[in-house]
């Protein structure tokens, strides 16, 4: 299993990508897609990246739904800021958040979530102190942001990756 499919998640994603690109779920395309998935997975071993263990698919779905809702909400919020509606006084600033997470894939997912949400931005992660610095476009309450990131995202990512 591990020799043939070193990265089962990546390989299944590649198969799905192949089938979607070809817009066809026929026997031939599934066969070709499996070939792409197997070769792609094997090529990744050359990079010697750490293997990933993902658990709790239910939590992943819940987290994805939550991130989607948050992205829509902050799209509206940032749109309002850009167009100049709402409070004129806006204080952008940096927040430092102490993280418990050390798993590299968990941190990478958190970086993607934070950066693709308009209004928050991943700036730096100090691995020694475990301190994450984010930039917030409309910083009202630092404590609230620390709570938001830790409770809404980090808790779930810890369940998934650690």
């Amino acid at each position, binding site marked *: 299993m591990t020799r043939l499919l070193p990265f089962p998640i990546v390989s299944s994603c590649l198969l799905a990508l192949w089938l979607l690109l070809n817009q066809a779920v026929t026997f031939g395309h599934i066969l070709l897609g499996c070939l792409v998935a197997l070769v792609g997975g094997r090529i990744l071993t050359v990079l010697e990246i750490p293997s990933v263990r993902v658990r709790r698919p239910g939590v992943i779905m819940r987290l994805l739904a939550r991130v989607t809702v948050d*992205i829509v909400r902050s799209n509206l919020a940032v749109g309002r800021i*850009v167009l*100049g509606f709402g409070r004129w006084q*806006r204080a*952008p600033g940096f927040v430092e958040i102490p993280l418990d997470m050390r798993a590299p894939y968990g941190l990478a997912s958190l970086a993607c979530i934070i950066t693709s949400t308009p*209004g*928050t*931005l991943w700036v730096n992660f100090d691995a020694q102190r475990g301190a994450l610095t984010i*930039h917030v476009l409309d910083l009202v309450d630092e404590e609230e942001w620390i709570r938001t990131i830790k409770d809404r995202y980090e808790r779930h990512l810890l369940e998934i990756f650690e």
Partner: protein
Amino acid sequence: MNGIEHLPPWAAVLTAVFLLTGAAVTLIGSLGLLRLGTFYERVHAPTLGTTLGTVFIAAASMVCFSVLESRAVLHEILIVVLGAVTTPIALTVLVGAARFRDTAERAQLGEPVGRALPHAAPGDASAGKAD
């Protein structure tokens, strides 16, 4: 495959609404790039286009071509997913570079680098220079 004139009215309206919404969201994001003050603020703006903007435009394309070809056309999902996964990487690298430069400039000026964070207020000159 039929031409665009064979699109039934309901699908045409849906496509137009999705397309215009996506374009408007992306335009607002680009406007933010112009209007916001410092580099760190500006990086927030384009994410509007890469998230909701792309989703709406991809949805418009899916509706239009699914109806025209009378089968589910789904590969636009790939654009949304791959875009969502790759944009944060570029933005994080950009911000990392800006932060590195700020920290180096502050060290050169002999300012304390304690937290190593430029506290960018609106119109802050040192942070605005980073772009």
